[in-house]
């Protein structure tokens, strides 16, 4: 079966090399037969016939950043839970599953709290609705 020897990763490297050779090889072979005739119009970015205005490398919406942040938290959580999940069965077999289950649940409940917080704040909504400004106006009226 699998050992701690790094040799088992050799197949991975070979497969990656095969994929890379396939891509580069096909592009090189194609270079010999395909036409090469770039015109000024051909190499402009496609925008349905309009002339492109400015670069596409501009600022993008901040909600992608929020999604990325939430993802990082959950992904780290997943990575941290993998070792626990792997040994959990062995602890159940020797009759000590309860303690591990307890700490496991504690860990998850912290995360669930985080999800509930994000949910209540509206960060899980793609189009976030802002209630803050109306509250401010109400306070000002008083």
């Amino acid at each position, binding site marked *: 079966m699998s050992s701690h020897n790094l040799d088992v990763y050799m197949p991975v490297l070979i497969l990656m090399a*095969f994929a890379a050779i396939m891509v580069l090889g096909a592009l090189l072979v194609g270079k010999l037969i395909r036409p090469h005739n770039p015109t000024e119009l051909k190499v402009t*970015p496609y925008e349905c016939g309009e002339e492109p205005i400015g670069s596409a490398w501009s600022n993008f919406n901040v909600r992608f950043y929020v999604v990325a942040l939430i993802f990082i938290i959950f992904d780290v959580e997943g990575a941290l839970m993998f070792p626990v999940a*792997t040994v959990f069965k062995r602890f159940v077999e020797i009759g000590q599953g309860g303690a591990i289950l307890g700490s496991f649940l504690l860990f998850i409940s912290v995360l669930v709290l985080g999800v509930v917080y994000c949910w209540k704040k509206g960060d899980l909504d793609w189009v976030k609705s802002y209630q803050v400004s109306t509250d401010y106006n109400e306070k000002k009226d008083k």
Partner: protein
Amino acid sequence: MNSTVVSYLSQAPGYALAVNKLTELFGFDATGFVNFLLFFLVAFIVVNVMSAIGGLGTYAERKISADLQMRQGPNRVGPYGLLQFLADGVKMIGKEDVLPAQADRFLFLVAPLMCMVGVFASLAVLPFSNGFTLTNLNIGVFYLLGVSSLVGVGIFLGGYASNSKWSMLGGMRGASQIISYEVPVTLSILAIVLMTGSLSFDVITEAQGGLPHEWFVLHNPFTFIGFFVLFIGALAETNRAPFDLPEAESELVSGYHTEFTGMRFAFFALAEYVEVFVVCGVCAALFLGGYKVPFDLGTGELIMKTFPAVHPMLAKQIGNILQLKVFVLKTLLLYYVVIWIRWTLPRMRVDSLMVLCWKYLTPIALFNLVGCAVWLWAFEGKSVWTLIFKSGVAAAGGHH
């Protein structure tokens, strides 16, 4: 070299002979060299077969969609149009390679490369049969999750490198969608890891049986839901409809590969179809019993018992081929479902996509994980069928 397929092939009679001959020839131990050559050959075959499967995937997509819409579909090239993908490939190689003037030339090349490398690296741990796994990593599931996210990087780079607004929007959407759905996928895979106590695909498959009630999908109510969470997440991670927003042709022209032509585009498409095969294989291995054949026919022991005259090696090989067939059959059935879903359901809106992931799938997957942990602790990992059978026996015993 400790890959399963090589250790399987090393039982063949010619292997020892070749090693001895080469050792004499070289003057040092040639085992490693022969193993390397064997693996190289096997990997070459696998890469080619999987590329063909990816190509046939495009054919199947067109043929099945035609079937669902009462059309003919491709039927000119080869019998039933089966060679259509080869014709497409040849055409793509001959197409002009248009590089947008303002594009990032290096990343424009890296993007399809990243997709292909990520997909083909994930083939390494796919358990085709007991003897035919390219490498049996002890962190198989974890490795697969890591490597398959290279595809997400490739898609985002494709969108970024093109310096076109459609591509950029598609790439951004693709990246946010893929990382979002990674969460429910990881959590539902974690539930299976919990049930088996191992990250290796081999151990997970061996923990199941050949008949449906021995599969993890029917093991307990939580894994039953977990399978569907994983399948939906896998659809979203491979950008398949109804989650094909990164390449939504009605709003983003063609999304992240708008600017890609010829072979560069072909590699994006090929990577997508092979990835669908991989995720279907993962679903089959984790939840649908993988390569397990009913009544333990896959081990070849039954054949050895019934026909003692058969050589044990031959019996084992027959078993292995059966296992391979069962695994591929399950995977292709899921593949069909994926295509079926694409041509049945309309595309989702981007906000409902995020709501589905974060407000439904993630809490459900978390609930499943906790449920599986409690189930394992309370019933010591027995399946619901074992419990029903036991209580039935106990009740029957009580009456007498």
